[in-house]
């Protein structure tokens, strides 16, 4: 996407956008990072659901294409990433599982995202996670290390010195926590979670993927819903790209049997993490209201939970 914005379009878009925003005022909670205020002009769509043709192969091309189309329909990566930006991409690389087991973000989604950031002129695209299992093992077995290398991004191991204690002014349970400095410093933070089952919270989605950017995650499990909402008042991704190409429907968050894996074929891109999470919940026959941390985030005004109020664009990718 290389849409040039001229003055006429700008004014036109501004009118459309303000109307759009006004229409969504009832929730008065859509996160529009500063950088996007201008880009919002081009489109007021805040969530795109791209459906891939799962029958068609080969898979890598399909997944990359669906990912690209989802971001294109949202206004293109240029809407988020400017030239010379430092981008931090946070996939879920938590587990020592292979892509078929749907416990980590699909490597081709990551590859497509890194490529798009590069194309948008990003100076550096860092891909990082602070995994549950040993990082060297998860990075290689998830296929993400290879994918990032192919896309010419830089795959980094989390550096424990860079977890800095940050205060969480709006925190209810957490007043401060150790958060990865690079994620806060990056010009653009892109969260690419995978949608999967989790016994405690029912589902692991975008908000929960933020746990890979903090220390001592085990301690977050008591009152997890409040704590996740607390974290997402500080860590605010500019873009969320949910990998629901394969979902893990049971025995999450790591799974391991092919029986539990469901081929859905969707990639959901959006700027409102709560809305994206809320939509992803419907893929499991649940609603956002039923997932504690989505509800909590919504009640704190961090995003929209009612899908009817979210400007959604559906894209079929042939």
């Amino acid at each position, binding site marked *: 996407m290389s849409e040039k914005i001229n003055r006429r379009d700008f004014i036109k878009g501004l009118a459309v956008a303000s109307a759009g925003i006004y229409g969504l005022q009832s929730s008065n909670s859509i996160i529009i990072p500063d950088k996007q205020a201008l880009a919002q002009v081009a489109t007021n769509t805040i969530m795109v659901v791209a459906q891939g043709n799962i029958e068609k192969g080969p898979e890598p091309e399909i997944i990359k294409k669906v990912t690209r189309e989802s971001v294109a329909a949202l206004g293109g990566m240029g809407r988020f990433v400017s030239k010379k930006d430092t981008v931090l991409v946070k996939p879920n690389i938590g587990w*020592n599982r292979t892509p078929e087991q749907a416990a980590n973000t699909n490597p081709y989604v990551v590859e497509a995202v890194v490529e798009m950031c590069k194309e948008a002129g990003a100076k550096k695209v860092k891909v990082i996670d602070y995994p*549950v*299992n*040993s*990082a*060297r*093992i998860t990075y290689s*077995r998830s296929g993400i290390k290879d994918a990032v290398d192919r896309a010419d991004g830089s795959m980094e*191991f989390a550096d*424990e*010195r860079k977890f800095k204690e940050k205060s969480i002014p709006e925190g209810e349970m957490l007043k401060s926590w150790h958060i990865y400095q690079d994620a806060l410093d990056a010009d653009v933070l892109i969260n690419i979670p995978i949608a999967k*089952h*989790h*016994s*405690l919270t029912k589902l692991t989605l975008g908000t929960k993927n933020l746990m890979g950017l903090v220390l001592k995650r*085990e*301690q977050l*499990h*008591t*009152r*997890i819903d409040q704590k996740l909402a607390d974290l997402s008042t500080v860590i605010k991704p500019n873009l969320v790209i949910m990998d629901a190409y394969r979902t893990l*429907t*049971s*025995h*999450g*968050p*790591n*799974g*391991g*049997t092919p029986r*539990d894996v469901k081929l859905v074929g969707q990639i959901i891109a959006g700027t409102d993490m709560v809305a994206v999470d809320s939509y992803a919940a419907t893929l499991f026959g649940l609603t956002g209201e039923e997932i504690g941390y989505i509800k909590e985030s919504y009640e704190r005004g961090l995003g929209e939970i009612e899908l009817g109020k979210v400007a959604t664009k559906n894209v079929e990718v042939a």
Partner: protein
Amino acid sequence: MFRNIRRIIQILFLLFFIFLLIKTVYPADFPIPLDFFPRYLDPLAASATMLASRSISMLIIPMLIVIILALLLGRFFCGWICPMGTTIDISDRILFRRFKRPKIKHNPRLRNLKYYILVAFIVGAAFSLQMIWFADPISIVTRSYGVILYPYFSYVTRSTFDTLYLIKGVNLISEPIYGVLRNNVLTLFQPTSRMLILFFSVFAVIISLSIIQRRFWCRNLCPLGALHGLLSTRLNFWRRRVNENCIECGKCRRECGLGAIPEDPRKYWPQECTECMSCRDVCPVNAISFGLKQPFFDKPKTTGLNLSRRSFVKSALAGIAAVPLLKLNYSKKKMDEAVIRPPGSLPEEQFLDKCIRCGECMKVCPTNGLQPAFMEAGVEGIGTPILVPEVGYCEYVCTSCTKICPTDAIIPLKEKEKQSIKIGTARIDKDRCIPWSEYENCLVCEEQCPVPTKAIKFETKDVVTFNGEIRRLKMPVVLKDKCIGCGICENKCPVSPKAAILVTGQIPGKESHGGLHKAADTSTMEQPSPQAVGKIKVPGQEE
């Protein structure tokens, strides 16, 4: 000149040895066997483990090759290859170069000690007690570098770069270097060893003994040196010769690092000579040469090897006497619960016969969870690898430790085989477990469980708290038959310092309380386990 060639070769072998140890990381797939030194260059460990386990393994082939080479060429291994010898040479040079050693008269009784040590350990092994790890230099040097010096080096590097990191400007240069080190040499976290001080003291003593004599260890104590020495007395084509130019200046005798040259410098003791060539290079009249000799016609007048039958028998008896001393153990019957052995370990008795404590498995363990045992496995089991979930857990997909055991105390496993082997069982301490005792949800253990259908389930219960509030909580329950004992639940449990879920061992081949040897194969249990109280909610079948 020859001396310098020898030094270069020594350094190259030491670097190769260190290189292999650095490459000893997950997934332990490397074209060269990572356990090259302990597996192929250690006839002592091979013979002792084969004797103790009363079995013949593939180790016999490299063992015979090394023995034949020693028969033909003498004790060259000690002078040219042995990483322990090279380490001692280097530390001698650095630490004791200017040091004035006490003048000790040459004492064959001290020198003969190593032969008696060898006899005691070998006879002990024949009587089923394998303690060779205690004195075998290859085992000592492998664990010293892999389990002691590596964490030490790692700590020093880390703290140095952590300090540089704080200095603006300098960190622009230091960080890229640190990045390269971190990605290629260091692990991502600081490795530790529980036996650091104990193992280190053995290493330190060996190094410091050089205060008394150069290469004190190699001269007087090393049983592997003794074995090479004994082999090199008979055939030995490769010999030191002194021609008629010799002026008896004694320079060679003073130079010899192993005291292999007697008063008459024309003679030498082949079983002590490591063929280091130093005497050749220092000789002012070039009277000394090394070369092929017809062995049967040119035997040295005396080998100087004068072992008394009495001492021989005494040391053999000492080896036998030690057997019950170390084997008798009051806690033996509980031992299968006390320690978690790495997956693929032989049954305990055979494991102890074979393990030489080289520390390769501990070095390769990606979570640092394999640690040397202190007294958990009895006196006989000191230093053997056990999984300590408190430190690290067993990665579900990793089989590294099974691939690099030089004596096959841990047999190689495929990933699928490894995942079906039960090494322990988790038990929940309900008095400390958060939902059971604090009425808050937690479920970290269930989340972490790597068994594809989860060996930790949960039951949903309505609990009345102390202030009358009713809370619906998810209580974790372990399915004993499915649990493989990897220890990740204990490792990640947020209750500290002692976790609220503890993993006890299950030594392969032994069954505990009717627990199953191969959990995943025999159980398709998705239903509540018999010992569970109340209803277990199976994920996927929500309310």
